[in-house]
Every structure is written in C-alpha cells, then in structure tokens.
C-alpha cells in the first residue's frame, strides 16, 4: 500500500519539479501533471479498494514522525478514500480536459491546478483544524488564481470578489480556531470529539464560528453571490473542478466539523441546506446563462447534500449510501455538463440548439440531466428513493416535500434547457469542433454514471431485484442505432415478442391485460415504423425505454421496482414526445407533470412503508400511517398520467404534435399506465370494506367531469390529432369514473373501456397519423373528400368511431351498457348522467373527424394523394379484427374479466347464460344483436341495391346547389368551426381557465425567482454584507 501522504508529496514534488523542468516545454510539464494526478488517483483507489473490499482498517498518517498535538495527522478511512478518489479522478479528467488551456496559460497554471487538487485532498484527510484552515486558504488562493488567469474584466471582478469573500470567511474560521485552542489547548479534531467541545465555557461560540465558516464555504443561499459569479466567469473546465471537486472537499470539511459540533447542530444544518436547495433552484428558473444556471444547480445540489448531512443521525446506516449516491451523481453530471458547456460554448440557453448537430453530444447532455434529476438507472435515483423512504419513515414528511419541491424547480430549468437543445430554433449555424481531449473526459463521466448506477442497484437486497434485461435490450438497440430502420425495427419487434412470450406466464390476469396493451400494442405501433426510411436516429432506444418501463411496472414486486419502471417509462415517453414537431413546450409540461406525479407516488410509497418490514408492492394494501393521505397522493400521481381534468394540460399538445406512429404509443398505450396505477391503488384501498368512500366519491366526480370537458373540448378542435387527444382525455375520464364506483360492474365497465380505448384510439391515431403523412396537414378543414382516395383509411375510421361512440352492435356498446347498469346499481345518478351526456357529445367530434376528412369535397391539391401506407394498414386492420371479435363474442373477454374482478368484488357481477349477459336489472346478448343487425342490414342493403341498380355515379360538384356547380371545394366543404352554434351555447364550459391557472402559477414562481434574484447585485460589498448578515441571522436563530 502506498501511504496517503504520497498524495500530498507527489503533488508538491511535481509542483516544485515543474518549476525546474519547465524548460523541457509545456507538453512535458503537462504530461508530468497528468502523471502526478493519475498516481494520486491510484493511491486513493488503492485505499478505497482495500478499505471497501479487503476489510482493511482505517489508517492514520503522522507527519514528521510525531503524534498530535505536536504534529499534523492525516486520516485515510473509507469515506476519505472515496472523497479523495473522487477529487483526484476529477482532477485527472479535468487536467485532460484543460490540457491545452493550461498549456497556453503556462507551467504556473499547471502548478496551481495541481496544488489545488492537492489542497482539496488535504482538506479531506487532515485531522488538524489549523491545517484545515491553511489548506482552505490554499484552495481559495488557487481557485482565485485559476479564475484570474482567465482573460477579461468579468473574471477579474469575479476572482476579486471571491478572494474578498473567502478571506472574510477565513477570518471567522480563524477566530474560531484561536478560541478553540485557547479553551481546549488542542487543535486536533479527534481531541475535540473526545472532549465534546461545546461543553466548555464559550465552546458553543467556538463551534458556531467554525461551523458557520464551513457552511459559508459551501455558498449557502442567499449569502452566495460571490460563489455564483465564479461559475459564470471562469473557464468551463475550472467550473467543473469547482463544482465537482471543491464541493466534495468542502462537504467533507463540514462533515468533519459536525462530528464534534454536537447533535444540536443537525437540525440547523439541515435547515440551511434545505433553504439553499429550494432557494437556489428557485433562482435557477430565471437564468438564461448556461454556466450561471449550472452554478445555481450546483449550489442547489450542495444544499441537498448539506441537508442529508444534517439528517445523518436520523438516516443511520443508510446515510453514507444516500449521501454518496447523490454526491456522485452530482459530481459526474455537473462536471460533464460544465465540460459540455465548454465544448458547445453557447452562453445563452436557447443557443444550445446547436448541440443537436452532433446527436451524440445530445445523448451525453441527456445522461447528465437525467442523472441530476434522479432518474433511473443512475445512482441518484436509488439514493433519492432511500432518502425519501427513510425521511418519511422517521416522520419528516415536510422535509420530503421541500426536497421534492426543490427537485421540481431544478427539473423545470434543466428540462427547459434540454428542450431548447433538442427542439429549439437553431439560430446559429456555425460549425464547432470537438477536441478529442475534451470529449474523452465527458464520455468517461457519462459512462461511469451508467456503470455506477448498475453497481449501486446491487447495494442491498431490496434494490438488487431490479430487472436489467429490458434495459440491456435498450442498450443493445442504442448500440446499433447507426443501422437502418428495417433492421432496428425488426429486432425491436422480435425482442418485444420474445419478451412478451417469456414474461406472460408470470403475470396474473390483471397484469396480463395491461401487458397485452403495452407490448402487443407496442408491437403493432412499431409495425407502422417500417414506413420510415433511413436510420431514424434516437427513436428506437427511447421507444423501447418506454416499453421497458411499462413492462417494469407490471413485473414490479416491490414499490422500488414499480417506481423504477415508472421513471423509465417517463423518461422514454418524454423523448418520444419531444421528437414531434413543435413539441418543445409540450414535452416540458409533460415532464413536469409526470415528475410532480412521480414525486407524489414516491411520497405515498414512503408513507406506505411506515411500520412495514417489507418493500413488497402489497404494502399499499395495508397502509397504517395516514392512509387517506397516502392514497390521495397515489391517486393524484396516477391521475397525472391519465390526464384527468386539472392535470391534463400537457396532453393535447404532446399527443397532437407527436409523430404519426408515436401518437398511439403515447395515447392508447402510455395512458394505461396511469390506469394500472389507479387500479392498484383502489385494490389497495380495499374493495370490500371501503373506508375511503369520500375519496372515491371525489374521484368519481372528477372522472365524470373529465369526460365532459375532454369531449366538449374535442368538439371545438380544428386539428385532427388534437381532437383525438382531447377525446382521449374524455375517454380516460370514463375509465376513472368506472373504477371509482368500486363495484364489480363499474370495474367491468372500466376495463371494457380500457381495452376498447386501446383498440379504437390506436386505430384512430394510426389512421389519422397516416393520413396526415399523406396530406401534410393536421387541419381537418384543409382536407375533405378523401374517402375516394383512401377507402381503407375511411373504413378503419368508420369502424372505430362506431365503436367509440358506443353504438350497437360494436364493442363500444358493451362499455355503455355496463356503465349504465353500474351507475344505476351504484346510485351515482347525476355523475352518471354527466358521463352519458359526454358520451353523446362524442358524436359531434366523431362526425366532424370523419366527415371533414373523408366526406364532403375533395380539395384540388389532394387529387393525387394515395391510400395510406401499407405499414399503417397492417396494424390498423389487425386491431379492427380484435375490435370485431370483441363485438361479436364479448363473453370471450368479459367472462375472464369478470372472474378476475370477482377476486376484489365477488358480488354483483354479470350472469352469463351462453352469450346472454344479465345483471339484476338488465340483459344483453352481444352476439345475437350482432347477427340480427347484420342480417337486417344485409337485407335492406340488397333491397336498396336492387331498387337503385341503375343509379348513375356523378362527379364531384354535381350537387343541388342553387343551380350551379361549386368548383371551389374550400367554400363548399363545411368544416371549419362547424359547431359554432354549440360553441355559443356551451363553449363557456371549455374556456381554458385550467391552462390559465397553471400559467399563472408558473408566472408567479418565475416572478418570485426574478424578484429574489435582485439580491445578487453583482457588487462585492453587497455580497460581503450578505455574508455578515447571514452569520448574524444564523447566530440569532441558533442561540434563539
């Protein structure tokens, strides 16, 4: 084992050597720096490995051969080894990234850089408080030096402010140390711990001074104006080091000081962290400068880590896992983002659209952002999960809310930025070059995040159950993304078929229904993808990611697995949605609603785990602690996915703007994930002895109103896909309404709707999407008369709208009939009447959809359009066959469904006698009705065909129209605002006041952010005042 003192010795030795050897050129000195850093990294790694895997005990190193207090001692324990490894690794990678930059600045800069890394190592390892002071000074000077080496007044000003601020902080620190020595006679941290410093007279003041300076070094909000400027002003490579390495060291210093400060500090530390986390992320909202925004994000993340330190006693043995899980994600991701910002060199967020010229950079950026927010499979996901679970379990729900709120703020600005990158208008078209030495470190940190995510998932028995096979498949598809669509699509379809085949025996009937919707539906939607030529870069990995998540939530045995799948699905669907044209804002609002919903679910899972000894998903069946709240949170979380009224504003745009074969994926399929969640929750609430009747009562009304508003809004759309999107909102309203009834029939109706909606909405979105591909517009009034050109599309739409509207004999009627029976037997008459009213409103938009597109007058520019693509016709007609089978033999589906529902609601099901279904009030024979209607229709058709056998087919415009031929189809085709009268009568119901509400909320948050931001005047004196005031305020708060 190489003793850790060599970390310091190497850095110092090489530093001095460079002074002598610089005549060999800067390449030589640069290589020397790299060699030194790699050796330092090696030492740390060696210790880390030995301490972690070989059970080596921690080691003290005594400088000069004396024991304290006569000499300084360094400690290399497990945490120290991790922290120094992190610092040295990022130091090394940073040096690679900065290689040219340091070379240009000269060997002095190389030395300063090396000394900075060394100082950070010592900050971690030293056990001497004065030594700590000295090296924090060295750190400050080194950082200021690196900033001042940057050209430009901005960096000079920032560097100067930094020096001034840190010297004030150091002064406070030094005063504390002097007093500490005065009252205890020692400077050794271990001695402080032994003698419990705060019991001495004046000891609390000493601790306060030392503590406050350690906190101030971490740039707590709002006394951190000086700290943010340096992120913006220094070169990206330095910002990365400051954000990743310095932060790690400073947090470690705080950790050491907390060891002797006493437990009474924990609460205040947590509070300071929380204020910083929320405040800093709030301010991040208003930033349009990339580096500055990342600076806020860094400080915010540090705030979260400070909070975790404050909770370290409460979190117990999980504390290191949580702390390092979040720290490492932040550390890699933030370094990566800062480095990327140096490569892209676009200071304004909107200018980041140039990044997508190199899609692989976009992948890296996405990796970092998703890691920061805490998505799987990154370490932060598991850490945040454990943090929330433990905090809720220990009764700290308010803190959880704070953490999730701060995370949401952070997500807003990070995903907005990401949206600009993926979809923003490309303003600049200038080329940029990626230098090899700059991109390598970025790749290393990105891949490390994935690898660490995998390993951290093996942390203990409850996280190690994660099924990585679907993710591995996604990775495979990602690896072959350079191949043409034909190959990737085939592999994806085969993979999904194979996966379905292997997984379906393991699923119960409830899950099997959803698995069929998710995977078989997914396969059908993928078939349409054969239409695409070329490579369709980026589509297959994200589509499969969504399916991996969807199947993950079905296979989940534990709450963690469920949440893991849920987040994968969210990530995948976000990328699918943002692929559409003009999808930037819709994808953002989708992501934010999804995240907020996910946080609600996460909190609810935490509450559910209170008092339980297992993580099994079945714990939601027996929630012991504030169950009403837990169930409400779960339902709210899932309602964001079903887009119930109030939480629906993301849906219309997201579905309408998605690509033609993506719309069914995110509509017919994805929304069912929310339905599955609601089903699970309602099962958990207990069907038999339902104590939550108020909750489901509210849910029932919500479903009915959603159905009404969704359908009514669909009537007034001119964009065909938007119309279908609003229709989905309405349809999901029925489903929620049906489940909320909590009766056998209600559930049967809701499942019938779920299956039907999957089929007909897939057909409609696929068909309309395919038509849109042909006619190049979404606006129905620009189409018309397409029945002549696309008979197959017309028939598909005709059948699906008959099914959707619930007209017998097709399968939609089964849903209506069941719902009527259920409503009457349940006694929810008024809600039921609203739901049925909504069902009739559906006729309006369905008629508009089919007639505006396919009937009426063909437009001149569509005279040469062809039938929709065969690749769409195949899945559409497969689904139509399914729809027809359901209609002709409803018992094939309804009987097994009934058996399944009987587990939860044994009473009140359908009685089957052959094909005849009866309830206590009604009866219905689907097959016979189909036969009767079919025969009657055939007879009447033959009769009319016979009577009008000589009818002459006439051309377009040959109509009874005031004695003339209306040769302008635009004016003859009545489509635009066709329901104007209806709008005048009932349009007030669909005024966008919910959108207005969310807009107002957004504006208020942004205005607060803009207002608070003004405290950062850019004036160094103001910043100093902040520091002093902060100290005073904390003093008074702490000492009451």
């Amino acid at each position: 084992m190489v003793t850790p003192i060599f970390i310091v010795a190497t850095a110092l030795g090489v530093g001095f050597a460079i002074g002598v050897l610089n005549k060999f050129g800067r390449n030589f000195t640069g290589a020397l720096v790299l060699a030194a850093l790699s050796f330092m990294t090696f030492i740390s790694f060696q210790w880390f490995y030995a301490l972690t895997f070989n059970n080596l005990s921690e080691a003290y190193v005594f400088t000069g051969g004396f024991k304290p207090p006569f000499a300084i001692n360094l400690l290399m324990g497990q945490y120290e080894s991790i922290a120094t490894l992190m610092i040295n690794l990022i130091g090394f990678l940073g040096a690679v990234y900065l290689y040219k930059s340091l070379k240009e600045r000269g060997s002095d800069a190389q030395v300063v850089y090396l000394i900075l890394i060394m100082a950070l190592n010592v900050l971690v390892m030293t056990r001497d408080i004065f030594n700590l002071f000295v090296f924090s000074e060295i750190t400050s000077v080194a950082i200021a030096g690196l900033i001042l080496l940057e050209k430009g007044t901005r960096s000079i000003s920032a560097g100067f402010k930094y020096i001034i601020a840190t010297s004030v902080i150091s002064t406070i620190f030094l005063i504390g140390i002097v007093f500490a020595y005065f009252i205890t006679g020692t400077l050794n941290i271990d001695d402080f711990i032994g003698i419990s410093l705060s019991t001495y007279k004046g000891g609390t003041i000493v601790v306060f001074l030392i503590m406050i300076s350690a906190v101030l070094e971490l740039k707590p909000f709002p006394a951190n104006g000086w700290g943010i400027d340096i992120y913006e002003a220094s070169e990206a490579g330095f910002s990365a080091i400051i954000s990743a390495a310095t932060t790690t060291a400073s947090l470690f210093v705080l950790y050491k000081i907390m060891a002797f400060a006493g437990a009474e500090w924990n609460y205040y530390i947590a509070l300071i962290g929380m204020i910083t986390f929320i405040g800093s992320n709030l301010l991040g909202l208003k930033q349009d400068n990339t580096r500055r925004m990342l600076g806020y994000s860094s400080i915010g993340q540090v705030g979260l880590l400070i909070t975790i330190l404050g909770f370290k006693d409460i979190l117990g043995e999980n504390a290191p896992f949580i702390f390092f899980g979040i720290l490492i994600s932040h550390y890699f991701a933030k370094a990566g983002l800062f480095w990327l910002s140096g490569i892209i060199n676009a200071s304004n967020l909107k200018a980041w659209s140039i990044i997508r010229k190199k899609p692989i950079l976009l992948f890296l950026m996405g990796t970092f952002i998703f890691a920061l927010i805490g998505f799987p499979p990154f370490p932060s996901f598991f850490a945040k999960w454990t943090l929330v679970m433990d905090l809720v379990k220990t009764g700290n729900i308010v803190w959880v809310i704070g953490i999730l709120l701060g995370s949401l703020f952070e997500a807003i600005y990070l995903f907005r930025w990401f949206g600009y990158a993926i979809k923003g208008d490309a303003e600049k078209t200038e080329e940029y070059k990626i230098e090899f030495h700059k991109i390598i470190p970025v790749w290393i940190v990105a891949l490390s995040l994935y690898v660490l995510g995998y390993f951290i998932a093996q942390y203990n028995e409850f996280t190690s159950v994660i099924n990585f096979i679907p993710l591995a498949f996604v990775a495979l598809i990602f690896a072959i993304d350079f191949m043409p669509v034909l190959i990737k699509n085939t592999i994806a379809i085969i993979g999904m078929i194979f996966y379905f085949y292997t997984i379906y025996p393991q699923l119960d009937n409830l899950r099997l229904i959803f698995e069929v919707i998710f995977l078989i539906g997914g396969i059908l939607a993928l078939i349409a993808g054969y239409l695409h030529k070329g490579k369709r870069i980026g589509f297959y990995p994200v589509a499969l990611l969504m399916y991996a998540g969807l199947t993950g939530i079905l296979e989940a045995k534990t709450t963690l697995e469920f949440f893991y799948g849920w987040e994968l699905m969210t990530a995948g669907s976000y990328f699918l949605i943002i692929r559409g044209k003009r999808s930037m804002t819709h994808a953002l609002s989708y992501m934010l609603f999804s995240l907020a919903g996910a946080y609600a679910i996460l909190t609810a899972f935490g509450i559910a785990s209170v008092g339980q000894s297992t993580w099994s998903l079945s714990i939601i069946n027996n929630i012991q602690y504030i169950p009403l709240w837990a169930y409400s949170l779960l339902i709210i979380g899932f309602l964001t996915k079903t887009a119930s009224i109030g939480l629906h504003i993301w849906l219309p745009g997201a579905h309408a703007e998605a690509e033609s074969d993506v719309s069914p994926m995110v509509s017919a399929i994805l929304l069912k994930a929310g339905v599955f969640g609601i089903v699970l929750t309602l099962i958990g609430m207990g069907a038999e002895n339902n104590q939550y009747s108020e909750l489901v009562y509210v849910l029932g009304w919500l479903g009915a109103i959603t159905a009404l508003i969704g359908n009514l809004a669909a009537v007034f759309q001119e964009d065909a896909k938007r119309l279908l999107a609003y229709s989905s909102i309405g349809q999901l309203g029925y489903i929620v309404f049906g489940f909320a009834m909590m009766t056998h029939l209600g559930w049967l109706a809701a499942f019938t709707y779920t299956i039907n909606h999957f089929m007909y909405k897939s057909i409609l979105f696929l068909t309309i999407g395919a038509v849109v591909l042909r006619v190049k517009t979404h606006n129905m009034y620009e189409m018309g008369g397409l029945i002549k050109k696309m008979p197959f599309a017309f028939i598909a739409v005709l059948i699906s709208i008959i099914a959707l509207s619930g007209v017998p004999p097709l399968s939609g009627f089964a849903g209506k009939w069941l719902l009527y029976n259920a409503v009457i037997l349940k006694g929810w008459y008024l809600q039921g009447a609203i739901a049925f009213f909504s069902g009739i409103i559906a006729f309006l938009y369905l008629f508009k959809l089919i007639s505006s597109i396919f009937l009426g007058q063909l437009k001149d520019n569509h005279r040469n359009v062809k039938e929709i693509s065969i690749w769409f016709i195949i899945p559409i007609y497969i689904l139509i066959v399914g729809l027809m089978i359901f209609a002709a033999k409803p018992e094939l589906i309804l009987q097994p469904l009934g058996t399944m529902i009987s587990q939860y609601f044994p009473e009140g099901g359908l009685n089957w006698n052959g094909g005849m279904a009866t309830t206590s009030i009604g009866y219905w024979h689907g097959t016979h009705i189909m036969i009767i209607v079919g025969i009657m229709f055939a007879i009447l058709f033959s009769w009319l065909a016979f009577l009008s056998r000589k009818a002459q087919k006439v051309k377009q415009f040959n109509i009874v129209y005031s004695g003339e031929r209306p040769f302008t189809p635009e004016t003859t085709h009545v489509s635009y605002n066709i329901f104007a009268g209806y709008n005048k009568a009932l349009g007030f119901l669909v005024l966008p006041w919910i959108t207005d509400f969310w807009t107002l909320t957004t504006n208020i948050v942004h205005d607060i952010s803009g207002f608070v931001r003004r405290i950062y005047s850019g004036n160094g004196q103001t910043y100093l005042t902040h520091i002093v005031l902060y100290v005073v305020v904390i003093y008074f708060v702490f000492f009451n």
Partner: protein
Amino acid sequence: MNIDFTKLFFTFLGLMIVLNWGLLMSAIMRKIGARVAGRYGIPWFQPWVDLIKNYAVRSQITHGIMFYLGPVFRLSGGVGLFLFMPILFGSNLWSNFSFQGDLILILYFQFFGMLGMALGAGEGGQPHSFIGISRGLSQFTTIEVPMTLAVISLAVQYHTLSISEIVAAQQGGIMNWTMFTNPFATAAAMLSLLGAFGHSPFDLVKAPNEIPIGPPTEYHGTFLGVLRTNAAILHVVETVLFMNLFFGGASNWFELIIKSFLIYFWSVFVGMVFPRFRIEQSVVWFLKVPLILGIIAILLL
C-alpha cells in the same frame, strides 16, 4: 338462436302495420297542420303516393358508396329499433327481438341510423347537409340529457332496464302508469321528445325553406323513398317507446294506435304554437327546465 318462423312472420307483419300506421299518422298530422294554417291540406293517402312515386323514379344519381349506405343505415336504424322493441304487452309474438337487449340497447341503437345517415349525407358534399347535421347532432346531445335522467329514474323506480318489465309494472289501472307514479321523469322525457321529433321549435335541423331539407338534401328517388319509409316506422316506434315507458304500454293494436297518436300529437301541437329556435337557443333550452325536471326526478328517488 333457433329460428322461429311464426315469430318472424309476426314481426314482419308488425313492421308492415307500423309502417302503414306511420304513413297514415303523418298524413293526419299534416292535415291538422294545414287546417291550423287555414289551408285544406293533402288527401289522407298522399304519403303512399309519394312513396310509390319515389320508388318509381327512373333516373337516379349516386355520390359514392357511403352516400349509398346512408339510407341503408338510416332504415336499419328504424327497423332495428322496431325489432328490439316490445310492441304489445303480454304478447310473445308481438314482442319482436326485445329479449336480446334492454332499454339501453334501444337508447343507443337510435344513433345507428343517425350516424350512418350523417355520413351518407356527408359524402354527398352538399353544404346544407353538413349544416343540418351539425345542428342535428348539437341539438341531440342536450335532448338526451333529460331523457337520460328520466331513464335512470325509471330504472331505479322499477329496478329493471327491461321495457317489458317496465310495462308490466304499470298494469292494473291508469294510476299505475309512470305518468302518475313518476311525473317528473315523465315531464322531462316528454319535453325531450319534442326535440327528438324535430317539430317546431326544434326543427332547425331540416329547417324547410332555409337549408332545403337539411341532411337529406341530396337524396332523391329510391334513396328518398327509403328515408321516408324509415321516417314512418321511426315515428311510430319512438312513440311506442314513450308509450311503454310512461303510459302503460298497449295490450292491443287499437290501444297502441290511440296512445301513439296522442303522444305524437303532443309534439305537433307544440310545433303549431311555437316558432323555430336558433341552434344555440334550442341546445340551451334542454338544459333548463327539462334538465331541472330530470334532476328532480332523480333526487326524489
């Protein structure tokens, strides 16, 4: 399903009776309307003449397959309603196929013809058809609201959705009729009937003189003949539905003719008195008094 030819024969016979009674009834109503307006009016056999003329027209045109299917859908809708409706109480032979589906089937099967007709007319490409359809659909949504509430109220009252059983429950004297046992539901439904029959003030759909005759503007010859046939059947079947639900049903054809005449006359009577609503007026109208009556019918359960 075993085929019972006796029953099929009776069903066909019933359809013919209903068709002819529907034609006669429409003649009588037109005659009444003419007399109210101070005209002499048509001879009583005029509908038959019209029908024969329409079926006999030699030159016909078509705009395409959906245009062709529109009247088929429409007539299937009318005949289908007849098939699923129990016509005479207590008679197995005159109950048609009503044992295959209940009241909900009837409610939703109404849309079968409407939707098909709307699509057929749509392919004609005639702007007036579109205008008529958009009005018709708009109006229909709110017509159904009081009707839905009334149906729910009835289903709860009688604890069945079977029309035959609802009729059975009303036997044994006039005071057992729903009209008296559940007056609010009856009132709500009878107001909604005004819209369903499309007489003034709710005749903006066809709006004679404004948009020729609305949806069927492009239809002529046999197509129109089919539509007229359907109208005759549909008027009777719908009155029979109301008769069954609210007025004790009928145990013989004579009773059916009297009751259906009176129910139909109610809409004609109102039509004689009130002028035409604009669409936004009629849409909202059903959400006022009829809706309140319907809600009262629900709340009184």
